[in-house]
């Protein structure tokens, strides 16, 4: 049998856009948008962006306390595949169509600073983003690892590496660092270790958890976050093994539903169990589920709550009243043919004060700042709040403007 190759230009390896891959070149049109829209005049913060931490796994493992687990991760032929981080099924890059996945490994960077800093600065400078909250990628499913001790060890090693190698080195990068929610006493220790570190602006609960968010074992985590004045982010994920998604046969289906469904479950538990009443000072941000799920859930929960207030005795107002006080990241914003629905959504969530721009870059469904800036129903003040001002307040940021903006403003 002869092997069949790609006879046409289907393969990203043959594509000239990939052969000399460079993030700045890929995003040249984004830079033009940034200049045309005068982003130099205001602060932009991206509250949900990513790097591929597994590409730095040998570095990260140097920060791991457990020598046996470190050896497992570094063992010959197994780097990145040794069972420390669950692998997700699904073609994020659409079989090579989204070229930055294949191109990333070919991108040339200087020896200093760290590769991840250079790559982040390239896309940030192209988009007009001044500061970015950086999250891992494969580790978003780390909470599904069957060995809780692996989740804890990986989380601690990653957080230490991130803090020392990335956040300490670059004033424009911050993070809400990984909380191993499946092991609450370790999560508490993680808060104590990292809450005061440079660039740490909050903590992150990821995707699929082994216990619901309202489980009593978690209460000390939330109390500790409240004490430190640190917001808690719920970063959604899809998990094809979730039995509620298992009948979906397409990646597009499980991705479209999974990311929203994940936060719908957590939010419903969070609100109906009265968590905002128990921890009134704890700020929460709901990340990467788009926005359309929020009006849906507000309407569903309000309607049932008014008939069944006895089911949710801790609530002192309607579920939507609590949800309107929480924070949401924008991406992936539902943009196609639904301008009126989007405007209603913005009103329902008090977007001007509660919505924070996010790109999710470099993932395939990333959103540019223009997705907010070009919305005709927002005035300039609202645009600037969503693109940066709200993040500045929530994270208590000291804004660091990008160098090209400072230079452009100096030139007048």
């Amino acid at each position, binding site marked *: 049998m002869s092997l069949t190759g790609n006879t046409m*230009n*289907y393969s990203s390896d043959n*594509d000239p*856009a990939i052969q000399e891959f460079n993030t700045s070149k890929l995003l040249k049109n984004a830079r033009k948008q940034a200049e045309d829209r005068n982003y130099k005049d205001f602060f932009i913060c991206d509250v949900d962006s990513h790097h591929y931490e597994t590409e730095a796994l040998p570095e990260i493992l140097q920060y791991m306390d457990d020598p046996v687990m470190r050896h497992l991760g570094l063992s010959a032929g197994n780097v990145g595949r040794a069972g420390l981080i669950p692998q997700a099924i699904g073609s994020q890059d659409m079989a090579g*169509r989204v070229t930055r996945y294949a191109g990333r490994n070919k991108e040339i960077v200087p020896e200093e600073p760290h590769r991840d800093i250079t790559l982040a600065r390239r896309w940030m400078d192209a988009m007009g983003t001044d500061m970015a909250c950086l999250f891992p990628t494969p580790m978003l499913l780390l909470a599904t690892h069957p060995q809780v001790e692996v989740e804890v060890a990986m989380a601690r090693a990653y957080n230490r590496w991130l803090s020392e190698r990335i956040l300490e080195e670059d004033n424009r990068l911050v993070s809400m660092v990984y909380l191993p929610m499946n092991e609450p006493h370790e999560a508490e220790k993680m808060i104590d270790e990292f809450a005061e570190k440079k660039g740490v602006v909050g903590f992150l609960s990821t995707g699929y958890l082994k216990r619901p968010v309202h489980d009593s074992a978690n209460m000390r985590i939330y109390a500790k976050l409240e004490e430190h004045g640190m917001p808690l982010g719920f970063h959604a994920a899809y998990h094809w093994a979730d039995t509620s998604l298992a009948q979906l046969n397409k990646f597009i289906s499980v991705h479209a539903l999974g990311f929203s469904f994940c936060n719908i479950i957590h939010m419903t538990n969070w609100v109906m169990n009265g968590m905002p009443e128990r921890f009134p000072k704890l700020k929460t941000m709901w990340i990467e589920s788009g926005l359309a799920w929020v009006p849906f859930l507000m309407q569903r929960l309000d309607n049932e709550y008014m008939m069944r207030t006895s089911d949710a005795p801790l609530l002192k107002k309607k579920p939507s009243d609590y949800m309107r006080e929480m924070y949401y990241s924008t991406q992936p914003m539902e943009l196609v043919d639904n301008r009126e629905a989007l405007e209603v959504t913005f009103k329902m969530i008090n977007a001007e004060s509660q919505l924070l721009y996010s790109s999710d870059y470099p993932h395939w469904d990333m959103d540019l700042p223009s997705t907010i800036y070009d919305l005709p129903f927002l005035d300039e003040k609202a645009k600037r709040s969503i693109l940066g001002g709200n993040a500045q307040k929530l994270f208590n940021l000291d804004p660091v403007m990008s160098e090209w903006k400072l230079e452009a403003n100096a030139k007048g």
Partner: protein
Amino acid sequence: MPERLLCAVSDLSDKTAKICEVDGVEIGVIRHKGDIVAYKNVCPHQGGPVCEGLKMPQVCVELDDQQRALRQTFNEDELHFVCPWHGWEFKIATGEAVGDPKYKMKRYNVVERGGEVYVEV
């Protein structure tokens, strides 16, 4: 309609769009089924360099006589530009988005003369 020189006919291929710049605007030019077609290198979705992405054929599903899916195939009679930013696909023949034809790439009229390619701007 004023014409602007893009490139020589010999510069073109049917595999990869040649990116030319006219008055600060990038235009992608490619041979397609014996014609030369030219589009603005800006995706109508979020502005990506749509002419620089992969060129992919339409994906189809073969059904049997009971409407059961048999397999997926490529239809190489219908080639698409794929925007490298998000994967939006556009028919190279018309510039229409595969998902909804009301989204279109901006197309330029092309004139081939004396071994050179011009666009009307």
